[in-house]
């Protein structure tokens, strides 16, 4: 645009220029003649010269900008606007159709929106490529022992038997209501009008479950709960409510690869990774946050909040009480929000204590309204298929927006009823969470020991369904390319799908996330064998 306008001004003033230089050198009589011919020159040369000489081009330039802006918005297919509107009667319809056949070639295909083009494209992230590959050709000990073993999907299959037993036992009762024996009458008890943001019974049950998960240190208020179809949409809704298009969230990296989709796709919000390093055991430090915040500010980007995952996905470490307090202070100082993703709160198995953001907020009196917690049953209760997510917020406005937004992602009633009675069965829940922790710990130990035998180390994981594995010794060259080469080898040669650190935006190459909860003990041996072959081929290559 600037080029064009510059050009325009040059040509405009070119003639006047010429005439002006002439008038300078020539006698006064000729300049009078010129003055008659080019009236504008008079103004320019005269007393008002400098002022008008600046104002006029400025104004012209300004209007040119306006003009260009207006021109740009109407569609470029203007040549068709002159076509007569298609008449409505039968006879002329065929005429208009023949008309169309002629012009169709020039019209081309209907376009989808620009923002969706990138979404429609095939997956390019190794995370999704791996997931697809593993789901196309899944490993099965008996029927498909050459299939791909899935270590990329954070899904808990260790306790599926407990859940299935419960459902088998209590299914009819929970969906159809207590009075199953009384026949069909009970179903009419299903409230006919379903609020989008979840049934009150489920909210109460969920609040109870959440406070049990954090060890009864906090009591959650059902009225602050909004239920959504999965944590995925919970996070997206919060993004819509807290940030506008072009705003940004700070997020400690490495982070869960799905956030790039959940947070960015439809909301237009940016994620600014705050890099954590292996030297600090991937813990978040406030100076790093502060630096990222200031850098974003300098770039003119408005930071609206921090997205934490605690227990961290993919590393599996927990945030200490002090870190959480510091974070809250930081958020307060910068006047930004905190979204705390506590999806794995009950899937902790280390010696460390899990501290929920809710506990921190409860101990303070001020500024609760900047804290929002995301929870769900996909991981902690191993019900990913049911799509139950939770927004727990202290901010009334955010709750109002979220409730309205749930029209796009509500949970179906039978699911809510089933989950309500499952969560209300406190003895089952207590038993379940205990055994879940036990099994997770056991699996994690087995997996870590197996890797250790192969000479591969992990960070100490205290929560989540995965290990964060350091394979930097196996990659060559020591960069992202080397990491992806190894990932490719693991996927295609060894037939193991893991998530490379680069998908999680880890700044150091050579880290991988391995989910061990889709395996059983027998499978672990197979996994280790397969990894060994890759290690050997790496060593022989070097």
């Amino acid at each position, binding site marked *: 645009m600037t080029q064009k306008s510059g050009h325009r001004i040059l040509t405009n003033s070119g003639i006047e220029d010429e005439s002006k230089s002439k008038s300078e050198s020539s006698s006064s009589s000729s300049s009078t003649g010129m003055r008659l011919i080019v009236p504008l020159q008079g103004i320019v040369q005269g007393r008002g010269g400098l002022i008008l000489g600046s104002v006029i081009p400025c104004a012209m330039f300004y209007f040119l900008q306006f003009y260009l802006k207006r021109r740009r918005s109407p569609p470029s297919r203007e040549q068709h606007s002159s076509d007569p509107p298609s008449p409505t009667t039968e006879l002329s319809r065929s005429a208009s159709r023949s008309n169309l056949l002629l012009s169709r070639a020039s019209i081309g295909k209907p376009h989808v929106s620009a923002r969706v083009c990138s979404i429609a494209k095939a997956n390019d992230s190794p995370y999704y490529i791996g997931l697809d590959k593993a789901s196309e050709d899944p490993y099965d000990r008996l029927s498909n022992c050459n299939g791909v073993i899935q270590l990329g999907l954070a899904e808990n299959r260790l306790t599926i038997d407990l859940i299935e037993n419960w459902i088998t036992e209590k299914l009819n009762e929970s969906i159809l209501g207590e009075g199953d024996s009384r026949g069909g009458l009970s179903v009419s008890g299903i409230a006919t009008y379903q609020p989008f943001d979840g049934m009150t019974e489920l909210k109460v049950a969920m609040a109870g479950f959440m406070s049990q998960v954090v060890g009864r240190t906090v009591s959650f208020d059902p009225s602050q709960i909004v239920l959504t179809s999965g944590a995925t949409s919970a996070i997206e809704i919060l993004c819509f409510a807290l940030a506008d298009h072009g705003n940004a969230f700070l997020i400690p990296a490495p982070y869960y690869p799905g956030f790039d989709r959940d947070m960015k796709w439809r909301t237009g919000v940016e994620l600014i990774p705050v890099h954590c390093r292996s030297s600090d055991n991937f813990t978040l430090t406030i100076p790093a946050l502060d630096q990222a915040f200031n850098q974003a500010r300098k770039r*003119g980007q408005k930071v609206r909040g921090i997205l934490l995952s605690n227990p961290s996905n993919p590393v599996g470490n927990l945030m200490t009480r002090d870190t959480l307090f510091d974070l809250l202070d930081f958020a307060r100082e910068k006047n930004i929000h905190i979204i705390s993703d506590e999806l794995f709160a009950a899937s902790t198995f280390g010696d460390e204590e899990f501290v929920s953001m809710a506990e921190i907020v409860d101990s303070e009196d001020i500024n609760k309204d900047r804290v929002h917690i995301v929870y769900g049953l996909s991981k902690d209760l191993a019900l990913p298929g049911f799509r139950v997510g939770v927004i727990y917020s202290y901010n009334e406005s*955010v709750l109002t927006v979220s409730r309205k937004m749930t029209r*796009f992602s509500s949970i179906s009633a039978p699911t809510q009823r089933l989950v309500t009675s499952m969560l209300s069965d406190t003895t089952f829940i207590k038993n379940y969470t205990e055994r879940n922790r036990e099994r997770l710990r056991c699996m994690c130990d087995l997996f870590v020991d197996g890797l250790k035998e192969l000479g591969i180390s992990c960070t100490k994981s205290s929560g989540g369904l995965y290990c964060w594995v350091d394979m930097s010794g196996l990659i060559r060259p020591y960069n992202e390319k080397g990491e992806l080469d190894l990932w490719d080898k693991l996927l295609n040669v060894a037939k193991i799908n893991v998530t490379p650190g680069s998908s999680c935006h880890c700044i150091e190459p050579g880290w991988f996330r391995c989910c061990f909860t889709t395996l059983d003990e027998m499978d672990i041996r197979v996994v280790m064998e397969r990894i060994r072959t890759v290690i050997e081929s790496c060593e022989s290559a070097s």
Partner: protein
Amino acid sequence: MKQNPPNKTSTTVMRVIVPLQGLVQGGGGGLVLGSIIPCALFYFFQLYLKSKSSSDSDDPPPPSPSPEISPIPLPPSGGLQRVQSVRSSIWSPRGHAQVSSRGNSVIKQLDSPYDVGLMKADENPYHQFTNLSGVIQLGLDENKLTLDLVQHWLVAHTKCSIIGHELQINGITTYHPFHGLSELKVAVAGFMSQLIERRVKFDPSKIVLTNGVAPALEMLAFCLADPGNAYLVPSPYFPDLDRDIKWRTGVEIIPVPCRSSDNFSIHITSLDRAYNQAKKRGIKVKGVIISNPSNPVGNLLCRETLYNLLDFATEKNIHVIANEILAGPPCDKSQEFISMAEIIESEEYDRNRVHIVYELSKDLYLPGVKTGVVYSFNQNVLEASKKLVRFSSVSSLSQRLLVSMLNDSSFVDELIKFNIERVERMYNLFVTGLKNLGIECVKSSRGLYCWADMSGFIRPYSEKGELELWEKLLNVAKVNVTPGSCCHCIEPGWFRFCYTNLNENEIPLVMERIGKVL
């Protein structure tokens, strides 16, 4: 135009004193530089302003943190340090954490009469035994006429449909594809074509399942248009569409008014006019959203109109979203419903521009289970939708229930048969009831509504009069209906009555209550 004649001595002096003027008045570069320099200055000034405003629109700029906070070495125990930082934050009080401006606009949006009515009826629902003075719900477009069939089926089959015959759950709780189980897609495709008497075969691979029609419409709006683009929508249209299309996508709706004089049917000429007006205003129109059968009017688009619509869309190179959620039960069998899918199958149109939305719950009412269907011929849209549906996928439990329900063909046959019978009977009863009160309805052939003309009862003849009548109906007669203004109808005095929430024996009561107000 009067000016100084060039005086030799004075110009020299001036030139020395004001060097810039020399450039302007003097040598050949004068005018050029005189234009470029201010332009450049102005341009940079604009740039500066722009960058300032984007960084400064933050809530109050951060006050320089008081120097005591950060440098103090933190004591090992958390307690002491807490006190300090809390105090420091009290000293520098800051506003409350703000929600985003798009969030704010959602909050500020006043509840329309449509929402107020739904809320009121929900708080104090009529019940024939327990709450006689409650509000009768005629505003919610749900079809409860076949609820008893569904209930019986649920009682008999819930367990085996989910658990299966070998008493084991086949991975019901685990991750499944977000866009729906393929069994369910096949079943839904079959059900959809059964509804229109198998004139069209729907292809399961073109289906994406969502949890309701709202996310389905939103997803399409998102896929086909960018923020600031617009859709043409013949009005009156159903009140929820505004939120579904506009809230999160930033897309606009341009209503194309239809009038009672031609039975609220769509005219291509008015579409064309609206299109051209939008274009003149610089708005890019990306598509037409039609609802067929029309909601709230209940009339059908004839084959000819559908052809013309496609011609129009092809000519303007825009998309067509056909909302066919009410395709199911006819209340008047004389007119045939024609799906957009049928037109597109039969003719040589570019299929890429046609997208159909359907919802299972209007025909198969399972309380609280909403299953929307996006049926698109456009591969790009399908690919994108399959990924976007991660935000609104259907729970596996409900999917299992629906699969076995839809595969039970004797049940489905019975359901469809009863649905048709009951909707027709209710429609006739309701319309006759209204006629006895002197209220005429548009002759509707599908849908769960009557579109009633009460313009004779409103005074003044304006939106205000309409809303007064609505309020009287809601608060005095305790009947919740949807006023035409919520549906963007340009003629006042029209109301939508949804009769499928009622029992047959409740109709006299409804009529009595309405009659009282009139």
